[in-house]
């Protein structure tokens, strides 16, 4: 464990940029490639890299299992909740036009909120799966 100094320092340098890239992919999805799914996997990959290099216990302090398990259904709820909200505003399920007065703004808000839901579920599922596999190896 002492000999992997380069790995540790290198990982620490890379980790914030991975997260930044995930956020870029998430919020720039309207203009460039990517979206919630890719951003979720990339940010989950960041936590997994952290867990591989610094140990799973350290990773669990960054992303507690309880929070991760809540993220799995939470994203679906955010997604479906957006649809329910548009229904409350008088539109159809997932019809974004009533969200704002301007057509474009309404659709940008709708896509934004839905993509957050995708990000949360995908990220939570990937991290939870990794934790589950890593836990099996220990006991």
């Amino acid at each position, binding site marked *: 464990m002492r000999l992997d100094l380069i790995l540790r320092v290198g990982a620490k340098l890379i980790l914030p940029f991975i997260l930044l890239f995930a956020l870029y992919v998430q919020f720039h999805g*309207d203009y460039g490639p990517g979206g919630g799914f890719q951003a979720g996997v990339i940010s*989950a990959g960041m936590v997994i890299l952290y867990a591989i290099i610094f140990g799973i216990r350290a990773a669990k302090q960054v992303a507690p299992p309880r929070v991760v398990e809540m993220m*799995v259904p939470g994203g679906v709820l955010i997604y479906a909740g957006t649809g329910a909200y548009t229904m409350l505003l008088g539109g159809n399920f997932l019809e974004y036009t009533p969200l704002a007065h301007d057509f474009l703004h309404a*659709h940008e808000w709708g896509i934004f909120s839905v*993509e957050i839901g995708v990000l949360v579920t995908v990220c939570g*599922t990937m991290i939870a799966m990794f934790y589950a*596999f890593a836990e099996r190896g220990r006991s």
Partner: protein
Amino acid sequence: MILANKAVENAADHAVAAAAANPPGITKLTENAELFVMMVLLTLLAAITLAIIRQRNMFGVVILAGIYSFLMASVMIILDAVDVAMTEASVGAGISTVVLLATLHLTQSIEYPQRRSVLIPFFISVVVGAALVWGTSGLPAFGAKTAPIHGHVAPTFIQYSADHKMPPNIVTAVLADFRGFDTLGEVTVVFTAGIGVLLLLQGGWRVTGNGRRSEDDDEQQGMDSSGGTA
């Protein structure tokens, strides 16, 4: 019209439409270069598949599968499907490799030699493979403008987002807006799969803080389940 052209370019693998916007000489050169890179990538894919078949060390197989995914992501980039390439690189080469390595940690990493005859499986693979290759002869030519997929709903989506000046990446608009309900289904699939894996691997008991289930928890669980069945 310019916006519509740009939209078509961004939307997916509309190689033909993109080529129409470029000068013919450059297009020819790009097409040849793409063809060459594509041939190299596909040859490498075939070589890696053969290596995976011959490899008996599971660790090697996992690493080769990761390389396979990266090559596949490169193929997707050449096909202008950048979103798919990103997904393939991050899921196929990243997360699956990690999960497979974690699985190898639990099992042995050397495959036992096959005792049974391989004739019947070999015969079935050859027949199925031949049927698939025969099936490709019925597909429209690669990048053909007249392919059914480009004539169904895609023009409507492109026209609609051009009319309403929606964001340039139509892939996002199609996934999250035009077909938002489909994507809700996909997210539910991811959710269901995640819950299923967690239930199978954690076995219904609550994993405690230090990652080991204690004897008390186990007994509690046994009592709970017996109570449930009675």
